[in-house]
């Protein structure tokens, strides 16, 4: 004979799988939204970046005739010299041009006198694109300046290295996975949110919904302790949330290979083992979310009230993610005993191909399940309340 909680679990899952709205929200739209959104954003970023790197930079120049050798040098740097607009300041302000180069007689005078020759880069730093164009143009001008400078030193019999006493070399320690992790920093939030969203409909349907449809009273007339009824429903809610998360990860696995990640020098550390670890990391939050939702939905007077409360609750998982965005922290062991924060840090570690220590695993699993247990205990107490079944 089946235990009562299993009977209830199976019935709730079967009933909700037959509900088109629940299936669509929890198992189709919910899991797709995160991966699709990030896919779109990433491909937009990639196509922008690669366009910019390969495309020649068009720069309008005023007084090109004053510095023909500089202009020739710029041409070798994939920069196209264009005729200048009549009012360069205005053209830049109105975003008709990103950057305009202005050379005049003072440049020629200073150059011939051997002084530092001035020229103007007209741009608007509050526009991102303009800032990039300016940087590229300035780098090209600087490379010409240092070439000429080196030649002048050599002409005076001085080794050019004399004026470069230090040469700093960048040695970036970020692995391709870690760089990918930077792009995946949205992932913890997406998944934790999924844990809350996936089971929400069931949490409402199995408590407030069941009462509103007047089927709770007959159900409670059965010879089954109420806490077992609640346990079956809680498990069904958790199962839907887990299923939703699993589908989210599958969607990621399907979408990732379509992204031109290698172009950005990135690698996403997503694989079956990582997915399994992520699901394990998220399990306490799934049960916790289901318990909190059941507690609230059982306490609510109506379906609508439950819906609006649970809508508010969905903001909670955003808190640690937002905090971490503002105050980046170095993960410490105690943080792994704070549910949600622990999940956020652990998923980031997994994404960056770092390992989660045994102590961190036990901290995050124990604390999460303990808290879930406490909340479930209070939910069971609400189930034992006389007024639960009676909507008065």
């Amino acid at each position, binding site marked *: *004979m*089946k235990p*009562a909680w299993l*009977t*209830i679990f199976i*019935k709730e899952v*079967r*009933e*909700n799988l*037959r*509900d088109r709205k629940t299936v669509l929200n929890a198992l189709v739209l919910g899991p797709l939204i995160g991966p699709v959104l990030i896919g779109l954003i990433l491909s937009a970023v990639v196509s922008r970046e690669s366009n910019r790197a390969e495309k020649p930079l068009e720069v309008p120049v005023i007084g090109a005739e004053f510095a023909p050798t500089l202009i020739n040098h710029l041409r070798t740097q994939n920069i196209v010299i264009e005729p200048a607009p009549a009012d360069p300041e205005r053209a830049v302000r109105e975003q008709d041009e990103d950057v305009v180069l202005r050379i005049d007689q003072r440049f020629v005078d200073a150059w011939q006198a051997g002084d530092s020759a001035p020229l103007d880069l007209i741009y608007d730093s509050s526009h991102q694109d303009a800032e990039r164009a300016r940087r590229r143009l300035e780098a090209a001008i600087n490379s010409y300046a240092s070439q000429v400078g080196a030649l002048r030193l050599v002409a005076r019999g001085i080794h050019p290295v004399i004026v470069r006493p230090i040469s700093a070399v960048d040695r970036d320690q970020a692995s391709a996975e870690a760089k990918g992790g930077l792009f995946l920093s949205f992932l913890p939030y997406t998944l934790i949110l999924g844990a809350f969203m996936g089971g929400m409909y069931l949490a409402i349907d199995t408590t407030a919904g*069941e009462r509103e*449809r*007047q*089927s*709770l*009273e*007959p*159900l*409670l*007339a*059965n*010879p*089954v*302790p109420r806490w077992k009824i609640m346990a079956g429903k809680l498990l069904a809610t958790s199962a839907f949330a887990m299923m939703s998360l699993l589908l989210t990860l599958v969607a990621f696995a399907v979408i990732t290979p379509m992204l031109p990640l290698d172009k950005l020098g990135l690698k996403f550390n997503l694989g079956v083992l990582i997915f399994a670890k992520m699901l394990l990391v998220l399990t306490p939050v799934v049960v916790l979310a289901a318990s909190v939702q059941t507690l609230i939905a059982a306490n609510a007077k109506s379906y609508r009230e439950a819906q609006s409360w649970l809508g508010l609750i969905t903001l909670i998982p955003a808190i640690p993610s937002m905090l971490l965005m503002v105050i980046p922290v170095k993960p410490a062991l105690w943080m792994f005993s704070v549910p949600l924060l622990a999940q956020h840090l652990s998923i980031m570690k997994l994404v960056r191909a770092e390992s989660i220590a045994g102590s961190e695993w036990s901290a995050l699993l124990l604390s999460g399940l303990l808290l879930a247990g406490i909340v479930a205990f209070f939910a069971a107490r609400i189930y034992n309340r*006389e007024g639960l*079944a*009676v909507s008065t």
Partner: protein
Amino acid sequence: MIEVQDLHKAFGAVKAVDGVGFRAEDGRVTGLLGPNGAGKTTTLRMLYTLMKPDQGHVRVDGFDAGTDTVEVRRRLGVLPDARGIYKRLTARENIRYFAELQGLDPATTRTREDALISALGMEDIADRRTEGFSQGQRVKTAIARALIHDPRNVILDEPTNGLDVMATRAMRAFLRQLRDEGRCVLFSSHIMQEVAALCDHIIVIAKGRVMAEGSPDELRARTGEVNLEDAFVKIIGSDEGFFG
């Protein structure tokens, strides 16, 4: 057999049930008659252990509802005032869900289920999802699932509420059949014709108290009224009670 002793239940300052006591014997249809708000539903809810009485005892086949709660629920078949069925499940699935919760094995479930489906005449709707069922079809489904475990005692809260004439007649026949099988049938109603047509024993409740008790003939004799309706009005003390 259901025995009720001196039940009290108050919601805040309102005394919904104020000292109700009676016996519902096996092989008899017992009717709980009273105007709306008399405390019938609250009394029944205490019988099927949905609510705990503030005071008093309920015994079902000798088991105390306060201490042997699960055993009492096993011995009761209940059609509550709220008779929602799961609309995304078929009628049969609704029935089987309760069979499993009652702890029946699959073979017994199968036999009982077929017997109830034919007794209630619901062969044509048994495997349809209950969404879109008529009121009568829903009540049939609710009764079938309430009786799936073959309970000795059957409690029904206003069982003919919302049923048309034909369905009401079928319901009455079904309740008599349950009685003839030797069960204890207890139902509540605010409709006198219904109680008069069906009951072997009538308990008249008003303002949370038992006003009178007996067979229809006894009640008529006691009040000196030939008409049962007049007898009730006399017992309750005013005709306002029925509408108030």
